[in-house]
Every structure is written in structure tokens, then in C-alpha cells.
């Protein structure tokens, strides 16, 4: 599908940028005129992906997190969150609800949240090469006033 607008962002994997990444994605998505709830869902999903890149992908190091966003003509947005961190050994297992490698610190619900708050979720990863999470979300068409 033809892209109507796009943006590419990158920043160091420090936690101060979690909120920033969320703000950027919503400032971009707002062009599609979503409702607050739709935008909130999207932000929550993006947060989870960015947090994972920071805390799992780059663990005890600082690396670069990449975000690529595209708007598609059917009122949907595609978001890629990429890191060049440690990668995931078993993607299926990682995506299972409650599965976490972070012990008691994390709930293991990140992927479950991404899945339920977006319409499409794809995870690609290579051990030692990094992880790319691709999410898509379509916003409801606006109800016309007096229409």
C-alpha cells in the first residue's frame, strides 16, 4: 500500500526516551485523527516495544533505538521499533504471556499488550543481531457530524 507520510527517528537507549518515543509516535499518529482511547492504546503498545529494546535488547549497554512510522491510506499506521541489541533466542516462547527473562522485575506481558492493543504484530529477531517489532493499527473512520 502506498505510504502517505512517514518519519524515522533514533535515540540512545536511555529510559528518559521512553516517554519521548511515545510522544513522537502520538504526535505523528494524530494526523489520522484518532480518538484519545485509540491513541492511548497505540502509545501503550509503543511503550512496551521501546522499553523492551532498552531493558532487554541493550540490557547493560547503551545502544541506538530506531523507530520507523508510516501512514497508510486506509487510515492505519505502521510502526517499527528496532534495536541492534542481543536478539531473542526463541521468539515464540518470548511472546507467551507471563514469559519473562527478567525474573520478578517484569510481568512478561509486554508482547501480550502489544498484540491486544494493535491490529497486527510481527517480531523478527536474530541472536546477537537485534530485534525488530512491527505493529499496525487502523483507526476507526471519523463519524461525520450531522452526517
Amino acid at each position, binding site marked *: 500500500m502506498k505510504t502517505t507520510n512517514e518519519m524515522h527517528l533514533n535515540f540512545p537507549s536511555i529510559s528518559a526516551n521512553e*516517554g519521548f518515543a*511515545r*510522544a513522537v509516535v*502520538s*504526535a505523528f499518529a*494524530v494526523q489520522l*485523527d*484518532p*480518538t*484519545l*482511547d485509540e*491513541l*492511548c492504546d497505540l502509545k501503550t503498545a509503543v511503550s512496551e516495544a521501546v522499553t523492551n529494546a532498552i531493558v532487554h535488547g541493550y540490557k547493560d549497554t547503551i545502544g541506538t533505538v530506531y523507530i520507523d512510522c508510516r501512514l497508510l491510506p486506509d487510515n492505519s499506521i505502521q510502526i517499527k521499533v528496532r534495536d541492534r541489541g542481543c536478539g531473542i533466542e526463541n521468539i515464540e516462547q518470548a511472546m507467551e504471556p507471563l514469559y519473562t527473562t527478567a525474573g520478578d522485575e517484569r510481568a512478561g506481558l509486554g508482547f501480550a499488550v502489544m498484540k491486544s492493543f494493535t491490529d497486527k504484530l510481527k517480531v523478527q529477531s536474530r541472536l546477537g543481531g537485534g530485534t525488530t517489532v512491527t505493529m499496525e493499527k487502523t483507526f476507526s473512520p*471519523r*463519524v461525520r457530524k450531522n452526517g
Partner: protein
Amino acid sequence: IGEIRRYLRDNNSIRVSRSLRDTAYKAMKAKEAFTNEHDREPSMDELAKILDIDRGDVVMALESIVDPVSLYEPVFS
């Protein structure tokens, strides 16, 4: 004059962090009112129009309260 202006700025200007929360609060109230009246949620553009601010600023304001629910609860419950 520059110094006076700086003084005024330092002492009287509202910090963004503080005003954002006020804006977010207004946004949540406006959303509530709109939903009651129209039986559907406002879109972000509609919300920005009601509040008469830039939609980028609405986004930023909502960002200042990571989870809107946490703002909502102490006020309405």
C-alpha cells in the same frame, strides 16, 4: 531591560511541566463532556478544537500524565 525581562521570566513564567498537567486535566474533562453529549468519543482534532489549542500540544499534555486513568481517579472518585 534584558535583565528585567529575564527576572520576570524566571519568576513568573509557568513551567511547562506544570501547565501541561492542567491542560491534560481540561482535556479529560472535555472528553467526558463531549462523550456525554454526543454519545461517542471526540477525535483528537475535535478535542484540540474544543480546548482551542494546537493538537500537538494536546498530545504533549496527555503525555505528561502517563496513564490518564491516574489523573482521572483522584478527581472523580
